[in-house]
């Protein structure tokens, strides 16, 4: 991962969403991207040039574009039509992005398209986020890493975020994952946590 004076950047063609450039590199803002926030807090697993990545909840493809700058290829799954239009534009310019319009809760629909990956990044605003992670586990290589961006408020707006995170960790471990760390993303994102898991 490249940092210039402590600022996380990624190598690639700029102008995707009006991001700032620094010495020819694209600034990856932790305030805009949860994954960048996780790296800013010192967590996560570094992206490597050989990595194949499955990204669930790709939205407009802003974070996806940075991930694609580092990794070999990114399978970007998004369900909503409006953000998908932007994601397709990103995929046209970045030839290692495969945009898949599908529902992350139904992996069978995109199973014929996705190969075994080294990392899954999940960022979906859904109630059953741990369940989605377990449903998408077949795509993860045995030595792969699963990064779940937990929106505590999407699970239950009224519950204490800490309790929601603990419940998600329990559900993931019950599903056979080993939780390496659960990192709160404050001050960059409120009531969010990144849960990094591996298989046994």
């Amino acid at each position: 991962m490249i940092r210039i004076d402590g600022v996380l950047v990624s190598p690639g063609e700029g102008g995707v969403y009006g991001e700032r450039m620094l010495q020819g590199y694209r600034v990856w803002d932790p305030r805009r991207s949860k994954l960048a926030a996780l790296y800013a807090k010192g967590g996560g697993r570094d992206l490597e040039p050989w990595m194949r990545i499955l990204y669930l909840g790709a939205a407009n493809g802003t974070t996806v574009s940075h991930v694609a700058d580092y990794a070999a290829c990114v399978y970007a799954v998004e369900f909503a039509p409006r953000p998908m239009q932007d994601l397709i534009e990103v995929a046209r310019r970045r030839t290692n992005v495969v945009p898949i319009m599908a529902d992350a809760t139904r992996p069978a629909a995109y199973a014929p398209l996705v190969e075994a990956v080294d990392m899954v990044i999940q960022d979906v605003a859904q109630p059953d986020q741990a369940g989605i992670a377990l449903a998408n586990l077949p795509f993860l290589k045995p030595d792969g890493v699963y990064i779940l961006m937990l929106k505590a408020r999407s699970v239950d707006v009224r519950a204490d975020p800490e309790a929601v995170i603990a419940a998600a960790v329990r559900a993931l471990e019950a599903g056979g994952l080993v939780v390496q760390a659960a990192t709160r993303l404050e001050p960059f994102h409120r009531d969010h946590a990144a849960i990094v898991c591996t298989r046994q």
Partner: protein
Amino acid sequence: MQHYWFGDVEEGGACTPAEGDVEALAERLDRLRISMASFVPLAWEDAVACGVVADRREYLDRLRALCIRRAEETIAAYYRQGDIELLQMVRMLDETDTVINLLTERATEWYIVRNPQFSRKYRAIGAKKMLSIMKKDRSSPLARLAGEIERLAAERTRLMREVSARADAVAPNCSALVGGLVAARLVSRAGGLAPLARLPASTIQVLGAENALFTHLRSGTPPPKHGIIFQHRRVHNAPRGTRGRVARVLAAKLAIAARIDCYRGELSPAFLETAQRRIDDAAGVA
């Protein structure tokens, strides 16, 4: 056997490539039914063994072309549903209303500064009249702006007719019951025709009165009798005592109408006649 986008792979590694161009591949994908229980993720090398692609670069390019094509088709099909554009039209209409009101208010304040003896009190000057008065003040940029606001208001009227016509086409039965504009507002508030068709009548009855409804649920104030459907003449012309009943009956018939619109998609004169009679009965009109 595992089914992948480029073909079928047997346990032993034997592979049958999928025939045809991007279109054929997309159609085949739509037909595939995968069970995740016995699923093994694909290995791109199988596609090479299959003779579909020569190398990794070609593999990714063909897969991307297929995925982009499918996504574009899904998006296009989604936007082709008439109610999606209707949603934007209704929201644009409401925003235009807000903007016209704001601009007229501001322009009036400006006019009063230029004409200290002017007052709207006791004179019942509507927004339209106000604009034409302001247009006469030739020496000021205010006159030009007032002209622009008038043009925007004319555009708003045109848009309103188009919304109504579009609602007639998208939701013919709802439009026949409550008029195109009110039907369009209901569709917009529900988020589309299909979501509207799935709402219970009791929800349709109070669509647009969410504030009153949640205040009622929170602190036990009287529940709202009607939301958007208040704009229907049978509801707002009904005497206070029967207004709730009319709203309830109208909402019940609207729920049925929305389902006919969504799942059958054509005008149903038989339904409309009985529904209209029932609504008139509730309103106590012979």
